[in-house]
């Protein structure tokens, strides 16, 4: 035999038919002998009946046809890619999913860091002179834009030393 406290806790489930055989029988037996719990059962049954009648009344006044028509339209409509993208963005940017934005940003930054220098290098097809020591001789560095050519020209003879003949001088000095 169960006490009033246990019967009261199980009463709602008993009314809904959710209790197993022995439990249901125990609650039913208690309700047969306990006036207080029987009164509680009566009140709950009245409440359930009132709610049910109210819901049925409301349901009869509701017009479901427009609602179902809209649902069917949503199912069959051909959505534009921009609307689908907007839905995707809204979903993707929902707070619980923002967690994956951090690794995505990191991947994007790593990608940019590896691509940008290579891209800049590929655009700069010139050879560039970083340092030059001509050991006292004259030297010229020419960068020709049209053919993207870098020329280092070494003037072989230091000033006043081993002057070349006029013919050799003409040949060893290019007219860039």
């Amino acid at each position, binding site marked *: 035999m169960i006490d009033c406290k246990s019967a009261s806790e199980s009463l709602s489930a008993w009314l809904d038919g959710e209790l197993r055989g022995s439990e249901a029988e125990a609650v039913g037996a208690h309700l047969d002998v306990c006036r207080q719990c029987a009164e509680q059962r009566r009140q709950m049954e009245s409440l359930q009946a009132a709610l049910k009648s109210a819901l049925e009344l409301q349901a009869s006044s509701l017009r479901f046809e427009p609602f179902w028509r809209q649902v069917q339209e*949503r*199912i069959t409509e051909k*959505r534009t890619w921009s609307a*689908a993208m907007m*839905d*995707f963005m809204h*979903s*993707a940017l929902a707070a619980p*999913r923002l*967690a*994956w934005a*951090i*690794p*995505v940003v*990191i*991947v994007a930054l*790593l990608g940019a860091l*590896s691509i940008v*220098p*290579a891209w*800049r*290098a*590929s655009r*700069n*097809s*010139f*050879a*560039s*002179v*970083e*340092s*030059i*020591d*001509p*050991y006292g*001789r004259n*030297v010229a560095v*020419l960068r*020709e834009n*049209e*053919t993207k*050519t*870098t*020329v*280092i*020209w*070494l*003037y*072989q003879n230091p000033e006043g030393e081993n002057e*070349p003949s006029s*013919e*050799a001088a*003409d*040949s*060893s000095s*290019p*007219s*860039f």
Partner: protein
Amino acid sequence: MSRLPKLPTPAALLFSILYYCAAAALSAAEKDAQAVQVKIGTILASNQSDEFDSRLRPLQKQLKVMKYRSYRLLKEETQSAAWQGNATFEIPGGRSLVVTPQESRNKQLALQVRLLEGEQPLLDTTVRLPNRGHFLLGGPPHEGGVLILSISATLP
């Protein structure tokens, strides 16, 4: 209602980042181990004739920058050089060219190039050029004209 595409999980993205970093590190290490192919073309430029060596056709536009009338390819040589290792090329007139690959960064190679006449240094320069790129070094007199060296480097 169309289903939204399934998004990658943070764990999958983290794995991608680690994989990317490991691949980049391996690629860099592999490149460091490779030798650089250095190619030197020795060209005689002069104003004594109007001859243009047909083997120099790919360089024609670049050579014309110097406005000589005649260009003849005297010699062409390719050597492999390890990073920080020397490749020495004999140049006509008792000269030599020592090329030392220094480093590879952003798909560009840095080369130290030293031109010697006997034991005497004529020029010491460091040039950064794109992979498979080239530059010209000219000036040493030879047989009534001047030598122009076409220096290129390729990282396989």
